[in-house]
């Protein structure tokens, strides 16, 4: 069974490129367009990994991470956030919120896979 990853981003193109890359690497991908959408999906099933953008309408990534971490079944599940080089200071904030790590945008496909593999075992 391929592992199922939840990818959250409000930008179609980013969502597409992340999903595509992950699928190419053999993962199953479920997408959500913002935090609210993602939270719905998180309630339905337990994904072994969540990858989320930080700036999104409705509910942003930081809030989403906090909400997810409140859920008992998501204790210890890795959550990665996508961040651009210029907002690297967000790192601390997101980690305090409960994120496992980050992927810097723009990313190289193999870099993304490497990071995902690292947290998904």
């Amino acid at each position, binding site marked *: 069974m391929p592992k199922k990853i939840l990818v959250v981003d409000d930008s179609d193109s980013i969502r597409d490129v992340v999903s595509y890359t992950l699928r190419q690497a053999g993962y199953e991908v479920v997408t959500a367009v913002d935090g609210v959408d993602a939270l719905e999906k998180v309630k339905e099933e337990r994904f072994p990994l969540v990858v989320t953008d930080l700036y999104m309408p409705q509910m942003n990534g930081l809030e989403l991470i906090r909400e997810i971490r409140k859920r008992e079944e998501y204790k210890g599940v890795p959550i990665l956030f996508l961040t651009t080089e210029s907002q690297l200071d967000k790192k601390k904030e997101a980690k305090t919120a*409960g994120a496992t790590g980050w992927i810097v945008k723009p990313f190289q496909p193999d870099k993304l896979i490497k*990071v995902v593999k*690292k947290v998904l075992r």
Partner: protein
Amino acid sequence: MDNSRFRETFIEEASEYLEDIETSLLKLEKFYSKEAVDDIFRAMHSLKGGASMFGFPHINRLTHELESLYEQIREGERSLDEEGVSLTFRSVDFIKQLLKNDDKPTSIDDYETYLKKLKNIGNAAPEIQPSAGSSKTSSAISTYIIHFKPGKEILKNGINPVYLMDELINLGEGYPFARIRDIPSFHKMDPQLCYIFWDVVLATEVPEEEIREVFLFIEDDSDIIIEKIAPEDLLALEEVRKLLSTMDSSQEISAERLASYAGRGKEQKQAATEEKPRDTETLHTIRVASSKIDELINVVGEVVTFESRLSMFASQLRNSELDELREGMEKITARLREVTFDISLVPLSTMMLRFQRLVRDLSQEQGKQVFFDVKGAETQLDKTIIEHLYEPVLHIIRNSISHGIEDSKTRKSLGKPEVGTIALKAYYSGPEVHIDISDDGRGFDLKRIKDKAVEAGLAHAGEQRSDQDWLRLTMTPGFTTAQKTDGISGRGVGMDVIKRKLEEVKGDVSIFSESGKGTKMTLAIPLTLSIVEGLTVKSDNRLLVIPVSNIQEIVSISHKELMRHNHVMVVNGYSIPFAPLFFQPAKKKGVTDVYPVVIVQHQDKKYGLVVHSVEGHQQVVLKPLGNYLRQMDVFSGGCLLGDGTIGFVLDVKKYITYASKVGTIKNQNHAE
């Protein structure tokens, strides 16, 4: 070292590398991709390594040339042109041949000429003899002591430090010491916090940045000290290994003490053989002989049968404890069956590469431009079924290229895109897998098919049939022969072969074609052959099993209705032809009996099978009938039922065909 066993493994491994290379080459033919070049280089490199290690000198030399060629491409020193790609394809074939012939070229002259050609194109670096192969790596190993104390909260954010230790040690060779002295006593301990920290002695050739990268994400919260103690592999030294293995986890490692061993092992190292690399690789998959899987399936089959017997026995005894056991057994058996079934499944992608190559070679040979579009290659099927699919799919694709797709000039004049497309799409559909293979070529010539069919005596002149029915006729053996003798190549050989091959795995094929626009063939194949979910029915005291996948519903019919002469009943507004299943209803008057009718579906039509009683529902393991009963092909096999009696599993498709032929069932179906 038992070389022959490794040779076997190498040959298997090599075929996989070659497949990878072909996949990348097919990609490169469409557009340049650095990744694909890297992949080829890596695969060639691995091939070369294995070939030199396990005694394939000819493959070794060949891959050496190719590796240098791709090295240059990688470094941007030369570009990869069409000639390069073609040459690589041919080399792949060459290597395949060498692998098959135990590294003996069919002609040594050809081999040398070919090698020279490769050398010229690649301007290869001087050949490195295998014995000196690993010279550059061994000197670059350094030894480090790494202190890693994770932040206490590390577990909360989904990082498992044990995995990090694995990752670290996989960089080379390592001795980890887990420090547990900070773990508080049990009642004071918070299980969500991490109290352990580690010291690791690591010998690796990767640079320090890469070691640091292991701790990505947690650098800020953890104490990480990486100390290089010697620019050589101290762990290769017997004394160091001895020292480390006698130390327990409470003892500190002294960097000075370890460093003092540096420089001592020069002579030792020379003698030490490099046997490590293979076993450090992580195992994602293991190879198992397919006969073992067959054996497993057989045994699971027996378990399933026993479980059915147990169930039946338990339901008669009505003992609650036994019932509980039975229930548990039932669940476990179902899971066991699922898991085993899953093991025997193989994705279609395993054979896709061969088709990609076929399309490439064949279209080039015929001067046509064909794009092969594959979707759903991840669809999985029983491995035995996959083996049977190769030939029919091959025939279909070959026919599509030879007879379907027109050459670019013709296509242009017809207003079609110059490049023809063959699309293969696989998907699940209920208990079956469907594979659509379509092309946008010229399609079947219906008129010619009609003429041919009449000529071969398969139809009357002017007969009314649906296009589909006419197309189906091309799959009768007589039809193909008629075409061949007369030399007209409508769709070439193999239509009947395609059908026959699919029937071997209980599959079916349907053809859709529009003249001038293209053809689509849909292959429908069952997911598995070995275990059938069946409805047990009784007909004249004979036990029969009807596969649940064929069944639509069960209705009932009165004796009076059963005796009606047109043998058609109305269910939900549809008239459905029915037939008593292997029995002759008695012609008594005034009988008020009611019979169950199992409604089955075959090729979009419904049929009713009348039986005496429905006994139950169980999983059965299909066993072939053996030679003696081979002619009874309305059954797909026999099976052992739960109570130990023997039942026959009905092949619904074959039965309907048979019953329509002898007239026990009418072949009509329409709404009223």
